[in-house]
């Protein structure tokens, strides 16, 4: 295939070469930036990794005075809040995407779509302030007492709903995170739902399918890999979210299985403590945390991108 991109060099060849080199340099710059970030976090955290080894990940003590740092609590808090957020956000996001592609009247789709996307534009510090001053007191007054009274005495899961209703904590942080990732997942899901070839849906309609049957038997199977990609994208966002979580998680270095108790996350620990870290080992431990966060989000986002690309290739085949 000959494209204009293979056009032979002309009189302006020198300028052409310079222009191409400049743009290629910028592309290299993007690559180098990511590598440099990872390398700089690994280098900054080397003292912590050397000192504690694997104990840095499995240790429960976070003792700035004694100089002993184990990251189990922030890692646990990051994972629990992110997964709870996804459990809440995924069905809601799919519901929104379905509403905006198939159910809502046409005139409603544009404005509501923009409104949902605006949720992603609100700065995370606003989520944090709202969470701390409005949502956490609401949880403490209305939701948490109910959870404790009705679920706290159940076997097994009851342990997750014990403790004083203080508002801030794992559950509140998870809900705020869920609200923040809903627009990311629903926007991608809406895009891929719209990309399902019309003839597949039409065939299902001709067979007498209801809309739910079209969604569950045509749309979702067809878009499965892209939807998983969208969920991973949301997970990547949730893992690294800092400000909102810092406000509502409570910055407590205790391992607690109750969702009503305050905890910590990797990003929140860094935000809260980095400027106060007075020893080299303390600072290095926080940077080591950032390295772990960066590696995990990199893997999650890479998986998301690969899943979304698979959907693109699938479409290339069917058309």
């Amino acid at each position, binding site marked *: 295939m000959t494209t204009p991109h293979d056009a032979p060099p002309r009189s302006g060849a020198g300028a052409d070469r310079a222009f191409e080199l400049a743009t290629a340099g*910028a592309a290299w710059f993007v690559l180098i930036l990511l590598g440099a970030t990872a390398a700089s976090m690994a280098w900054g955290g080397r003292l912590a990794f050397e000192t504690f080894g694997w104990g840095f990940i499995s240790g429960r003590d976070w003792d700035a005075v004694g100089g002993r740092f184990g990251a189990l609590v922030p890692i646990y808090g990051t994972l629990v809040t992110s997964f709870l957020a996804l459990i809440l956000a995924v069905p809601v996001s799919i519901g929104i995407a379905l509403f905006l592609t198939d159910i809502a009247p046409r005139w409603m789709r544009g404005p509501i779509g923009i409104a949902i996307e605006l949720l992603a534009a609100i700065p995370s510090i606003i989520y944090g302030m709202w969470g701390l001053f409005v949502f956490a007191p609401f949880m403490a007054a209305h939701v948490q007492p109910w959870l404790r009274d009705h679920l706290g005495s159940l076997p097994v899961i009851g342990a997750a709903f014990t403790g004083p209703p203080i508002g801030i904590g794992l559950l509140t942080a998870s809900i705020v995170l869920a609200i923040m990732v809903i627009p990311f997942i629903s926007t991608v899901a809406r895009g891929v739902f719209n990309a399902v070839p019309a003839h597949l849906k039409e065939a299902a309609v001709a067979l007498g399918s209801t809309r739910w049957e079209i969604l569950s038997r045509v749309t979702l199977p067809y878009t499965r890999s892209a939807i998983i990609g969208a969920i991973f994208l949301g997970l990547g966002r949730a893992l690294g979210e800092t*400000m909102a979580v810092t406000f509502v998680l409570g910055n407590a270095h205790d391992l607690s299985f109750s969702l009503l108790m305050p905890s910590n996350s990797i990003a929140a620990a860094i*935000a809260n403590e980095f400027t106060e870290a007075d020893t080299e080992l303390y600072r290095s431990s926080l940077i080591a945390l950032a390295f772990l966060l960066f590696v995990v989000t990199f893997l999650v986002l890479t998986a998301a991108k690969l899943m979304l690309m698979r959907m693109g290739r699938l479409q290339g085949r069917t058309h």
Partner: protein
Amino acid sequence: MLLRRKFADLLARAFAAAATLFGLTWLVWILWTTLSEGAAALSPRLFAAMTPPPGETGGLLNAFYGSAVMVLLALAIGTPIGIAAGTYLAEHGRHSRLAAAAGFINDVLLSAPSIVIGLFIYELVVRPSGHFSGFAGALALAMILLPIVVRTTDEALRLVPNTMREAAFALGIPRWRVTARILYKAALSGILTGVLLGLARIAGETAPLLFTALNNQFWSASLAEPLANLPVVIFQYAMSPYDQWHALAWAGAFVLTAFVLGLNLLVRLCARGARK
């Protein structure tokens, strides 16, 4: 059987509508809080006085100024590099391995945790120079802006019809002039949309500024010193135990939200209008 299928369908539709309502409820709740708390704390002093010590009245003038300076500097650094890299992805390097790799990595950077970017600039600039600075803050913001500009430039250029390139090459115009004079012009609204959405994004970023620009209670116009900025002032004041600081934080939050959402709406409406 038919009844059960119809019932399942009805249930799915009701759930989808309820999910949308659920999402919109949070938007309204958060906006209402920001509006009511922020409007109560708004006053002309906000734009005329410096950030106060605890117990005194004051405004956010130095924070607004510092944020504006850092965001503009970040735009000046991030936009040209982003447009150049986006041009490589869409034009000069299309189909090349470098473009594929850079495009992939760019999408990862797009969602990378901003707090890690702040720490990276800390290690790169703040630690060697020995002090926090507005310049370091601007670099951190530029690094967050960059992938947004790369992605939107790439997409905008890909939307330019190939016939336009072919016509230009047929006239014997050198390739770089085709890109600079014709393709950029055709893709201008798309690129501008990306830059403005990036501007809205970095205006509210807090985490990357915590360890780079830090904060400054006093007026400072020097980029070599810690620089006051709106997000970090909001963070510190909201976390403080003082009522007056809370009120200022809400006022700042109101201005920030109005700016970010206003810019977002404006850009989206203009982009929709241009497409029609």
